[in-house]
């Protein structure tokens, strides 16, 4: 029982990341009809927004410490962040410590800007082209973006820790009256799950309860008719691309304390997120979210030693195996609509 609860909890945070990326993918596919293979790169760029802000906040000047020496035996040059000078050491440390949550504010405008630039600058030229062309150009774009990040930030992972207040873990088992030390869960993963739930809820509320959202939903259902009504649906879809980029970016920002970001992290999530979209049903937002959590939890279960001992290698193929079974039994995915990608 402990093991089951533990793997469900583990699946939740992994599923949160899948769900957030798949949500953005579905938004773009539903509105613009574009299969965006650069979406994982947007997740990665979001993570590097956190790295960038952390570096900006940690900008330092050198102070020579005569009492210590560096590796060449010269007096040690110690970096003192400017925020220490401006706000005092304690306040400066707190500001740097909270750089990941602060990065959310930094990432939103940056990601919307990148999203809109991507859509206007490149992707709009491929709307009427076959999906294969779209996949090729967006995949190429993803590689270009990750190489740019690698050029400036290097290939190694860059540690970007959570605020001190959220490091460490809590004993979930003891909290619910079970044996202590059996179900441990890190605070930040709980924060990530809560954050994902809020973002997903906000996107749904935006689409459901605002006029903008209503037009976008109408455009997703029948783009031509909405256009004939005199509504500039293209402009709204461009904004939706920006919002989808921001969702992926925010997911990336909050993911940095879980795994140190590197230039390749987007690709690691991209393929799985596409499977999530297909399993959830192409173009279905609730389907993407549901499939994200479902596959995240299943992946966690497949990593259990007992399961691997029973079926060796299952941890590497579980998601694809489930995708095959679901697509065989429900060809449109869990919540797919008729007519999507079937013409």
């Amino acid at each position, binding site marked *: 029982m402990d*093991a089951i609860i533990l793997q469900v909890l583990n699946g939740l945070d992994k599923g949160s990341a899948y769900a957030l990326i798949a949500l953005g993918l579905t938004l773009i596919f539903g509105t613009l009809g574009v299969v965006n293979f650069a979406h994982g790169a947007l997740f990665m760029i979001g993570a590097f927004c956190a790295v960038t802000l952390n570096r900006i906040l940690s900008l330092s000047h050198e102070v020579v410490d005569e009492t210590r020496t560096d*590796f060449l035996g010269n007096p040690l040059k110690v970096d003192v962040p400017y925020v220490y000078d401006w706000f005092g050491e304690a306040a400066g440390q707190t500001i740097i410590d909270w750089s990941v949550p602060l990065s959310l504010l930094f990432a939103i405008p940056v990601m919307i800007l990148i999203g809109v630039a991507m859509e206007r600058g490149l992707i709009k030229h491929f709307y009427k082209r076959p999906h294969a062309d779209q996949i090729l150009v967006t995949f190429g774009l993803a590689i270009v973006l990750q190489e740019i990040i690698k050029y400036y930030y*290097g290939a190694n992972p860059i540690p970007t820790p959570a605020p001190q207040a959220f490091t460490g873990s809590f004993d979930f088992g003891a909290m619910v009256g079970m044996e202590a030390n059996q179900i*441990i869960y890190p605070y930040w993963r709980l924060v990530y799950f809560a954050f994902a739930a809020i973002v997903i809820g906000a996107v749904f509320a935006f689409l459901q309860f605002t006029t903008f959202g209503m037009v976008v939903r109408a455009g997703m259902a029948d783009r031509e008719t909405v256009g004939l009504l005199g509504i500039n649906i293209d402009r709204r879809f461009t904004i939706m691309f920006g919002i989808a980029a921001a969702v992926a970016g925010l997911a990336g920002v909050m993911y940095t304390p879980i795994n140190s970001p590197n230039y390749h992290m987007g690709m*690691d999530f991209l393929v799985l997120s596409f499977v999530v979209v297909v399993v959830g049903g192409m173009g279905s937002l609730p389907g993407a979210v549901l499939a994200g959590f479902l596959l995240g939890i299943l992946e966690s279960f497949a*990593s259990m*030693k007992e399961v691997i001992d029973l079926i060796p290698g299952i941890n590497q193929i579980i998601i694809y195996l489930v995708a095959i079974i679901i697509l065989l039994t429900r060809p449109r995915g869990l919540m797919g609509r008729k007519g999507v990608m079937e013409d």
Partner: protein
Amino acid sequence: MSKSNLTRRGLLKTSAIAGAGVALPTIFTSSANAFTNEPTGSTVTLGFNVPQTGPYADEGADELRAYELAVEHLNGGGDGGMMNTFSSKALKGNGILGKKVEYVTGDTQTKSDAARASAKSMIEKDGAIMITGGSSSGVAVAVQALCQEAGVIFMAGLTHSNDTTGKDKRANGFRHFFNSYMSGAALAPVLANAYGTDRKAYHLTADYNWGYTTEEAIRASTEAMGWETVAAVKTPLTQTDFSSYIAPVLQSGADTLVLNHYGGNMVNSLTNAVQFGLRDKQVNGKDFQIVVPLYSRLMARGAGENVKGIFGSTNWHWSLTDEGSKTFVKSFGEKYGFPPSQAAHTCYVQTLLYADAVERAGSFQPCAVVEALEGFEFDGLGNGPTLYRAEDHQCFKDVLVVKGKENPTSEFDLLEIVEVTPVDQVTYAPDHPQFAGGALGSCNNGA
């Protein structure tokens, strides 16, 4: 009726000219084609095959820095670096055998097929006489086999799997870096001393060749001193989030987690383990501990604060105080502004060792170089007295046990040396079971 003009003298003359003509190609070309890429001009070309793209690109960049420094020193530039402290005095700073050293580079991408292709290109198109570099055992084994076939020398870079000088060893290949067995042999006594002999260990192992040999080595050495292995789970090489593998560790009753991971795997699994608060837990009445068998400074940087207090092993560290290490750190540090990594060190040393062997052999011929390196004993290159063992072409030297530093002074000052394990403690028989199954074969001159 026809009349022949053939005379006895004419026949002899013609036969002599024809004979000389037939023999000419072998007389003059046998030397030129005696071995692959024999340098005939005033220069000699070395091939540096390092990861310039992909996940180990930063490590590859450090290797390349070291190679450029070594070439500079071999050609008489800079301060000469470890050529001044090297026990062999064959190198004069005038290139190798008087030929100026030039180099070409290839990108392994940390993929065996890409590494073989770049090595092949450097041998066939650029005329490289020796190939060196790499940051992965898979790549080392693949390129070593290629060099054996092509008839050039391979001086391995960073490769830690037992198999490189075990079942996949080749006569034309040489490894200066230490291996999984040596890590286990060096770490076990330190772990026993720090954590006791009654421990239950849980292994997470990267699902590829290096992971298997490292797990085997660490298990063998820790079990020999009384530790019990409660579970060993293989993790996919592509895994980024290890939470689902780490969460069950406490439920298994283990009180020690051994992470047989390297690179991004190590950074992520260690970060996840610390996030799950494993190090704050008490199991079986003991503080929970984590061990990382193979440390690299570049990876310790990626894991940040999480490496503090965690034991591991390393081939070399810039804080060593012997003359060779101090000289190398000074040369490298003054040129590049930061201390060299262990990958940089082993690559620099391998280049010097190759050049020195050629000088001592008096020839670039691979079999002569092999003979000069086999059983070669040297000192002054940063690891104390070292032997290039003839039976498997593995260097035997002291091994460092290190620990994540509690109060680092810079981003390069992340590890502290806990113990320098003497070479005798990490030496094994050539036919040790962990290295069984392969044969060096004969050296190949190619051509």
